[in-house]
């Protein structure tokens, strides 16, 4: 047993002395996590994405109640972090800014917009409850679809409230006794008052209440880096396990493995020691990255025992893949190249780059063979306030994966000449 540990510790030391390997094991995932932190808005205070200060150009040709109200919406405190509004003198100038990629969208409020909505004497007399619509134009930048979508959502929300106000005020006015005899001025004054009243109602006063619940949000505020950081760590873990496996073939080529085998050391002790070395290196790598995410990015991981066990299970599962690759590989170059390919393929299949939810169904099914998918599932559970007790499924899946791959690899090793003197 002592020999097994000695071989394992020796491999751990060798890995952490190799600067090129360290670059891949620690620096690359750390830098990519940092970059993803920017994308998700984690470092700019964004809550759901990095979208902020979306440049939007507004042309208010209406210059009346509703046009001004929409302008106020764009300049409101609620949207100050999300939008960066600016006004243009003419629709042509605004469209030009979009064509030149200076803004995400232009909102052009035409003259007569308010008049077309707020009920007037003429509308009531004519029974024309919906006057000729005067449409707001949203001129969008095709290169900034997400930002343009946000601008459209803001306008839609405003129009939705305006419509509610219009329908409310029209319904009320038409039922007021003696409306037929009122002067145009009186009707319009009443319409303005009722419209403002109906328009002022917020959503909570709507007839159907929407009760919302964010899973686990009461306990822990989810941090996007709690997904990104382990995602990157697990992806580069696949490099580490293939690097470790490759070292077995390197020892064979350099002659240190045959020397070990002629000493009073059994092949299973050598193989066990190498596997232990890979496991310890992987555990140290993921552990350091998780600790770094807590120290540098203030990611809160919760249950330390859960974290420790999850990392162990994820590294065990990944080791299985590393060993299988080594057993199948014919040269160090082949194992290295296939290891890098496996790292990237498992990364994308496991949800490191984009959420599995956005992937086709067959990819979601295939992702179950990757330690990345199960590991990320576990880390997300922990970040949402879960504990070791909630990690049963991912941990068990990773252990079964690792054990199965170890058995298959041992069988292949038994038939190959790698572990023979």
């Amino acid at each position, binding site marked *: 047993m002592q020999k097994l540990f000695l071989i394992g510790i020796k491999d751990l030391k060798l890995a952490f002395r190799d600067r090129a390997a360290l*670059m891949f094991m620690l620096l690359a995932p750390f830098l990519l996590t940092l970059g993803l932190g920017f994308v998700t808005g984690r470092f700019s205070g964004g809550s759901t994405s990095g979208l902020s200060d979306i440049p939007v150009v507004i042309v208010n040709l209406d210059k009346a109640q509703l046009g001004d109200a929409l302008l106020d919406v764009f300049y409101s405190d609620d949207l100050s972090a999300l939008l960066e509004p600016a006004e243009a003198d003419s629709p042509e100038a605004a469209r030009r800014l979009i064509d030149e990629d200076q803004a995400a969208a232009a909102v052009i409020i035409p003259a007569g917009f308010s008049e077309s909505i707020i009920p007037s004497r003429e509308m009531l007399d004519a029974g024309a409850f919906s006057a000729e619509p005067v449409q707001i134009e949203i001129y969008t930048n095709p290169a900034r679809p997400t930002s343009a979508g946000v601008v459209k959502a803001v306008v839609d929300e405003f129009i939705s409230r305006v419509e509610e106000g219009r329908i409310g005020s029209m319904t009320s006015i038409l039922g007021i006794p003696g409306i037929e005899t009122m002067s145009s001025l009186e009707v319009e004054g009443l319409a303005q008052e009722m419209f403002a009243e109906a328009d002022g109602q917020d959503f909570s006063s709507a007839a159907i209440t929407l009760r919302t619940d964010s899973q686990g949000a009461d306990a822990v505020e989810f941090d996007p880096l709690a997904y990104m950081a382990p995602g990157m760590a697990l992806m580069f873990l696949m490099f580490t396990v293939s690097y470790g496996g490759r070292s077995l073939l390197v020892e064979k080529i350099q002659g240190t493995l045959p020397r070990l085998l002629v000493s009073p050391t059994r092949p299973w002790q050598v193989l066990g020691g190498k596997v232990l070395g890979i496991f310890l290196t992987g555990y140290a790598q993921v552990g350091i990255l998780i600790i770094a995410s807590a120290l540098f990015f203030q990611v809160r991981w919760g249950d330390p025992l859960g974290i420790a066990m999850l990392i162990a299970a994820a590294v065990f599962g990944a080791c299985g893949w590393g060993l299988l690759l080594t057993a199948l590989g014919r040269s160090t170059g082949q194992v290295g190249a296939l290891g890098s390919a496996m790292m990237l393929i498992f990364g994308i299949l496991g949800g490191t780059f984009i959420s599995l939810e956005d992937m086709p169904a067959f990819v979601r099914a295939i992702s179950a063979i990757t330690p990345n998918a199960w590991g990320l599932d576990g880390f997300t559970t922990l970040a949402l306030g879960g504990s070791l007790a909630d990690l049963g499924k991912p941990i068990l899946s990773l252990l079964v994966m690792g054990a199965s791959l170890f058995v298959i690899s041992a069988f292949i090793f038994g038939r190959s000449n790698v572990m023979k003197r």
Partner: protein
Amino acid sequence: MRKILAIIIKDAIMRFSGFSELLFFIILPIIFTFLLAGGTPSGDEDARIRLLVVDEAQTALSAQIVSELAASSAVRPEVVSRADAEEQFSQRRASSIFIIPAGLDTASLQEGTAAVDFRQQPNNLNASIAQRAIQTALRRVSSAVSAANTAVSQREEAMPFASDAEKAAYFDQSLELARELQEDTPQRVTVIRAATPDQVEYDPRANSSAGQLITWVFIPLFGISELFAYERATGTLRRLLTTPTRKATYLLGTISGQVLMAIVQMLLLVGFGILVMKLAWGRDPLALAVMLVCSALAAAAIGSAMGAFVKTSGQANGLSIMLGMVMALMGGCWYPIELFPPAIQTFVKVLPTTWAMQGMLDLVLRGGGLVDILPEAGVLLGFAAVFFAVGVWRFRYE
């Protein structure tokens, strides 16, 4: 010239001596382009966000809510059982679930007790969008009742009702009127997509295709540094000193060989984009050729400069992949650059990947031509000039 050709052929043979190189040259780039594009459906598919709806009420009102959601431009409702919805939600296969509980009907709406439930995964943009879509649908469904209630209270304020029956009749009359008004609601917003010369439809898959093309070409070109380090380590560069081969010949042969291979790789990926993903890469072949060559030169120059500083091939390999991935991420090759904070968007202009991506998108997305990509091509050539100068200046045989 013969020497340069000989170096190019030698490098090509060395690089493609094993099958694994094909993995990185074409197989993985295609897999990545395909999968990342798979997350962004084409124009033929329904690009709306999937929303799981549990309809336990089974009333006309709940059907109306589902119908409003189906008409939404943001979400695609999928009615499932509660057990199915909860299973998908707990496994994080669904960003949100919308539950219409039993008992939701017009009576509860009038009484003001109508309520529905929405559960969302935290920090999920899709869930936030779905919530907005639900709010809009509920607003539409309930606004008629709200309007009728408002009309009743307004009327009561102006002239109290003589009896409850009169009040109820007034409510019914107002509700009918409000529904009539709602049905006649005209379209008040028109969206116009900024025109590109060829009226190109926005296709987010273009981002994936261009981004992956740059990622998978920049990394091996940064790998030129590994070639230099390898030849230094094996002593072949020193041997060159004993032959009548100038430093410039060696550098030109090595770099132009890698650039040529990169251009072939890019053409294959462009071909995949055109044939499989139906992207409009080929509108202006000359402009495309300029962008491909300038991008390859910029990346090759950085690889050459790196090669002058790295000590071992292992170090060079790690550094190339790491820098390639970080530059691709920060240059907007993986995620649209519009998602970055403004300060970062400005900062990343120091990266060649940002300019390469910008130029490629000008071509494939905005329908631009040679004139439109000249600024990006100029900046990339500037990168190439600076880094080639550094590489040649600091180049050493041992």
